[in-house]
């Protein structure tokens, strides 16, 4: 019994934790952007993809992972700035369904453009750390633990910025009531642009960080976007803490469920959890009541 706990359950809990952090990374930007500007960003996965490809490109010139990461993040942020400035800006205040259409089209363009620029092959980025450690009878790659660590740091940082800084207060003010915030002298368009940049930069960051594990290819965004959406919705759209908890929950459920049931059923289970969550709490598990 104790053996079962230590050698079967515990490693799965760890997997779930690491995997949950990874999902949270992608979901965070999505939920921040929605919470602030009501944009349902279907192209979020494509920013994640661009981040990974940028990392790959830098790595092929300067083979140093820790240079590639900031360059890629900045590049994606600039792409975010450009798209926000040229496209999203024109849509504020319109029905979210238009954002959906816009990001749907944008995603198609990004995917195809990536295929034109980099080709359709799967690329690899070597992990900067390849060591493994022995851990309760399980060999565990250090790089994954590193991601877990970085993830926790980034999440704490975001939480700190939003909660305790004046920028964070402004962002929360705009999210609460855009008109009022504007009247109080907060420059709403600047906040929008910068938050959008940060949101997609987070996706780009996740893209490079994950590329040693998930590899780099043009359609990689599609593979993550649904999962990220589920997490964001279960957590309550726009609710950062909710998205975090939901990510960990989904990671753990999938990891633990796969001990006993087939992984495909576990994956479907995630959707069923989503459905049940939303029936019981229509605004998400951790969401406020109707907005």
């Amino acid at each position, binding site marked *: 019994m104790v053996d079962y706990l230590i050698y079967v359950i515990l490693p799965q809990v760890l997997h779930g934790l690491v995997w949950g952090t990874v999902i949270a990374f992608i979901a965070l930007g999505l939920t921040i952007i929605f919470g602030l500007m009501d944009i349902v960003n279907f192209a979020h996965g494509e920013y994640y993809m661009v981040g990974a490809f940028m990392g790959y490109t830098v790595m092929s010139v300067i083979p140093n992972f820790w240079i590639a990461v900031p360059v890629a993040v900045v590049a994606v942020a600039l792409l975010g700035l450009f798209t926000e400035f040229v496209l999203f800006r024109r849509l504020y205040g319109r029905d979210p369904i238009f954002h959906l*259409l816009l990001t749907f089209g944008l995603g198609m363009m990004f995917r195809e453009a990536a295929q034109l620029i980099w080709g359709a092959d799967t690329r690899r980025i070597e992990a900067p750390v390849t060591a493994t450690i022995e851990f309760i009878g399980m060999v565990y790659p250090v790089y994954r633990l590193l991601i877990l660590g970085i993830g926790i740091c980034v999440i704490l940082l975001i939480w700190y910025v939003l909660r305790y800084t004046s920028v964070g207060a402004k962002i929360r003010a705009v999210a609460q009531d855009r008109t009022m915030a504007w009247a109080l002298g907060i420059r709403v368009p600047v906040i929008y642009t910068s938050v959008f940049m940060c949101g997609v930069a987070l996706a780009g960051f996740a893209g490079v960080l994950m590329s040693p594990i998930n590899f780099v290819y043009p359609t990689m965004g599609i593979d993550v976007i649904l999962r990220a959406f589920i997490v964001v919705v279960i957590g309550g759209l726009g609710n950062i803490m909710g998205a975090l908890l939901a990510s960990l929950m989904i990671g753990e459920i999938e990891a633990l469920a796969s001990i006993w049931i087939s992984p495909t059923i576990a994956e479907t289970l995630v959707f069923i959890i*989503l459905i049940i969550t939303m029936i019981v709490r229509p605004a998400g598990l951790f969401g406020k009541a109707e907005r």
Partner: protein
Amino acid sequence: MGKLNSGSNITRVILFHAVVLAVLAILPLFLSTYHQKLAVEAIILSVFAMSLDLVMGYAGIATFGHAAFFGIGGYAMGVMLKFLFPSIWLGLILAGFCSAVLALFVGVVSIRAKGIYFAILTLAFAEVVYRIIFHSYNTPLGGSDGLVGVPTPMLGLGPFEINLKSTTNFYWVAVAFAYLSYLVCKLIVSSPFGSILSGIRENENRVPFLGFNVKWSKVTAFVIAGAFAGFSGAMFTAFKSYADTEQLSFLLSGKVIVMDLIGGIGTLIGPMIGAVVITVFESIISTHFAAHNIIIGAIFVAVVIFMPKGFLGLFAKKDRNE
């Protein structure tokens, strides 16, 4: 709407319908068989797009899972034709029934959620359906290989039989199918029930105080839309001789929203045009340009930015009081 009463208008409307139908009817004489096939596909998809307009354009409910009903209809038709009884009519009945039942279930369960939450719920339901069928390996449904080799039966019309193996015949049948569906949907939206739906779209909170049950009105609209999506899915399968999981995928759900928005929602005819435009356009662009997704994506983006009311909006008269 009140204007529909006047006599001259009715004559004009009838005349207009007659002309459009006549043009559609003689169109195949000028089209190659391939173009006819493309036209049939586009026409069938136009009914699918129109069915979404009932909920999205009239009741103002966004749904990301509409493909589920299309796909289920397709599979129902496939199962009917391949394994049960080779009759299009029975296939349509089964398809409409299955899709409507699914829509009823999804609707009743999720109608309490509003806006984007409802949309995500429908997406989740559609994904569950998709996964169940995708992994139904070793069942007659064929899992990810799809249900292939669906026979094309004769279409019995009383004493007559129409050979649907002829593309031109199927084209006419598809036009009739689309036209009838349009008429029925048009009647629905211009009925008292349709007014309730517009009321819900405009101001959901006021509607109950006028004596209407919002929840059931929405569910009814959802079920009707689901049934029509099922019908069009069934026709799609009958025409293409296969049912595939692609018909259930969230990408198709996204695409049909795009079709509606491009055509102009809340008009019924707009989404139909949108579906035809996108289907034909996709076919042309992917044949003549290597990077076709960039072009199609750019068109979506341009539509959102420059034509928020869709294609019809460009040609519509300016709103009376704007």
